[in-house]
């Protein structure tokens, strides 16, 4: 597993006759990402009240994000990755709360601040993109006004200027006809377009850090590609660092510099992206990487109709260790935790 076997070329459109196809290239990933330390997290813990003992959604969480770095936070449902990411900006879904830890943005402590003090950081220094854009946007407010409200939350500008900046922000994320679209309500947008509105809002103040919490979950792959392309362009334009929370290792492999893997509230491994994929050290990471690699080569798993599988093979097929772990945690939490992060 540690040996990076030359992966077969994934299928792609072959260019027209005459043009040689682009060969896959090996991209040099750096072991030491550039930039100063931007965000430091030590011993973050988040608890939710349970029936008896409180449920610790985040237990051991230490992470460093440098300037302009793209960090993937990977884990499966209920691993606490979304909870942890939101907690970095002092957001915890009630009734949960942060019970321990420090978060420092450029050396300034965040968690000790009040909600009012954090207001100046959120949306200005840290931009947020959440999972379901149509739920995140206020259904009763026109999208242009929602962008303009965020503009005015952190800049002393008049209404006209705020609206003009909203139009520009929407244009920058590829919303067609932004002058007219500002008058649309969220329910009038497609999922992909609504998700791009979140990019517009998150980057309107050129933040130093973007927290993207499963931003492509629920999007179709062709729409996802458009979203990621837009996000990448905006990130490069604003020079922000990104914490990308996802369960999709494809996104991590293609877009991130560094990866942290979460399992049941703990970061079990973190490393630069090439190391994670070529030499994963934690058994859970190994399993995840193995599963993700498999989908690149569907031929290997194709059924061979001439050879029916033997009974012995059938008996031991299902139930990987991670599946068993999930089953255990579901029972322990009475099915609650598994539902919090769809």
């Amino acid at each position, binding site marked *: 597993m540690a040996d990076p076997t030359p992966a077969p070329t994934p299928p792609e459109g072959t260019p027209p006759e005459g043009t040689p196809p682009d060969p896959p290239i090996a991209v040099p990933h750096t072991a030491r990402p550039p930039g100063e330390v931007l965000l430091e997290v030590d011993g973050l813990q988040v608890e939710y009240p349970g029936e008896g003992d409180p449920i610790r959604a985040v237990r051991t969480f230490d992470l460093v994000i440098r300037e302009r770095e793209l960090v993937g936070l990977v884990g499966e449902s209920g691993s606490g990755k979304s909870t942890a990411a*939101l907690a970095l*900006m002092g*957001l915890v*879904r*009630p009734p949960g709360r942060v019970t321990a830890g420090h978060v420092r943005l450029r050396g300034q402590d965040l968690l000790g601040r009040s*909600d*009012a003090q*954090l*207001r*100046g*950081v*959120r*949306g*200005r220094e840290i931009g*947020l993109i*959440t999972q*379901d854009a149509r*739920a*995140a*946007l*206020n*259904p*009763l*407010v026109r999208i242009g006004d929602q962008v303009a*409200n*965020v503009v005015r*939350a*952190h800049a002393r500008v008049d209404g006209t200027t705020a609206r003009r900046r909203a139009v520009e922000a929407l244009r920058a994320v590829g919303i067609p006809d932004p002058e007219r679209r500002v008058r649309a*309500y969220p*329910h009038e947008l497609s999922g992909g377009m609504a998700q791009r509105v979140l990019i517009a*809002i998150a980057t309107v103040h050129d933040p130093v850090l973007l927290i993207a919490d499963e931003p492509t979950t629920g999007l179709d792959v062709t729409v996802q590609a458009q979203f990621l392309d837009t996000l990448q362009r905006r990130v490069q334009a604003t020079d922000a660092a990104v914490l990308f929370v996802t369960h999709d290792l494809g996104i991590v492999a293609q877009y991130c510099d560094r990866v942290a893997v979460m399992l049941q509230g703990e970061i079990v491994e973190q490393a630069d992206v090439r190391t994670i994929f070529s030499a994963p050290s934690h058994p859970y990471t190994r399993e995840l990487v193995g599963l993700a690699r498999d989908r690149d080569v569907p031929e290997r798993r194709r059924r061979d109709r001439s050879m029916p599988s033997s009974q012995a093979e059938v008996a031991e097929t299902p139930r990987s260790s991670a599946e068993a772990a999930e089953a255990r945690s579901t029972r322990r939490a009475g099915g609650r935790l598994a539902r919090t992060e769809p």
Partner: protein
Amino acid sequence: MTGYALRRLGVGVLQLAAITVLVFVVMRFLPADPVGRLVGFTASPETIALTRDKLDLDESLPDQLLIYLGLREGDQSPGLLQGSLGDSWNTGAPVVDQIAQYLPVTLELIILAFVAALLVAVPLGVLAAVRGSGRLDAGIRFYGLFAGAQPEFWWGLAFIFLFYVTWQVAPAPLGRLDFLTAPPPRVTGMLTVDSLLAGNLAAFRDAAAHLVLPVVTLAFVLTGPIIKMVRQNVAKAMASEYVLYARGCGLPTRQIAAYTFRNSLAPSVTLIAILFAYMLGGAVLVEQVFSLGGLGQWAVASVLSFDFPAIQGIVLVITVGTLLVLLAVDLLHARIDPRVAR
């Protein structure tokens, strides 16, 4: 929006026509003997026949309906389409005049009670939602349950016992003014309004004093469900994704409060309208207890004496009132929530 309003209005007119016909027909099938009740059970057959003829009761059912609607000439003409609700069989006075006399009394009572209930219940509901589960919340919940646990007339009697009999701070529950107070000239029929229009502060004080207990009684019962509903809707809005996201964008507290309020208003408005219609039922009992001589009291008297034109008139007025309230609410709802008017 205008199209939506016109469609809603059209539907309202159809509903009104259907209810008018339905009530008329149902009344005719009641096992009642209005003529015997009018002329006395010892009257001669000729008198009875004459009365039946005068009341058009000798006509076939479809003909009676046509006369009532004003589509055919009869003894009871003019009809509905000519703007007449007929004459009361009890008093001989036009039903329209009687409605003009009784309706303002009831309107005054329910409007004041409604405003009072909203003024108390909305802040309490919001407070309970914002504070979450605490002693305040428990207290407010208990109050809601307690107030709603008994019917209006019971509370009316209890308040009379306490405030009039025991502590003697309220006037006697016998009508709308003291016997010695001269009523102000009639303009709207609502004594508090008319006395102010006439500049008669003594009459105003007296009318207001007489209204306090009935209004408090009605409002007391109404606050329970409104608190519960406001609390639920505000709590739901506060726990929503868009509020979490708005906090993540660093929007000012004032703006988040406005988002929360507006979004919880939309579902509340519909329920408030239903409560408004429900209040009419409560008003009947309260008018009875405090001898206010309003529409409710008159309705009870009319039903007991089989005064068909009066009953039909009352049903018509209540239907129109209810339909107007529902229409207003739907329009308001569509104004708040763009997803409705589609």
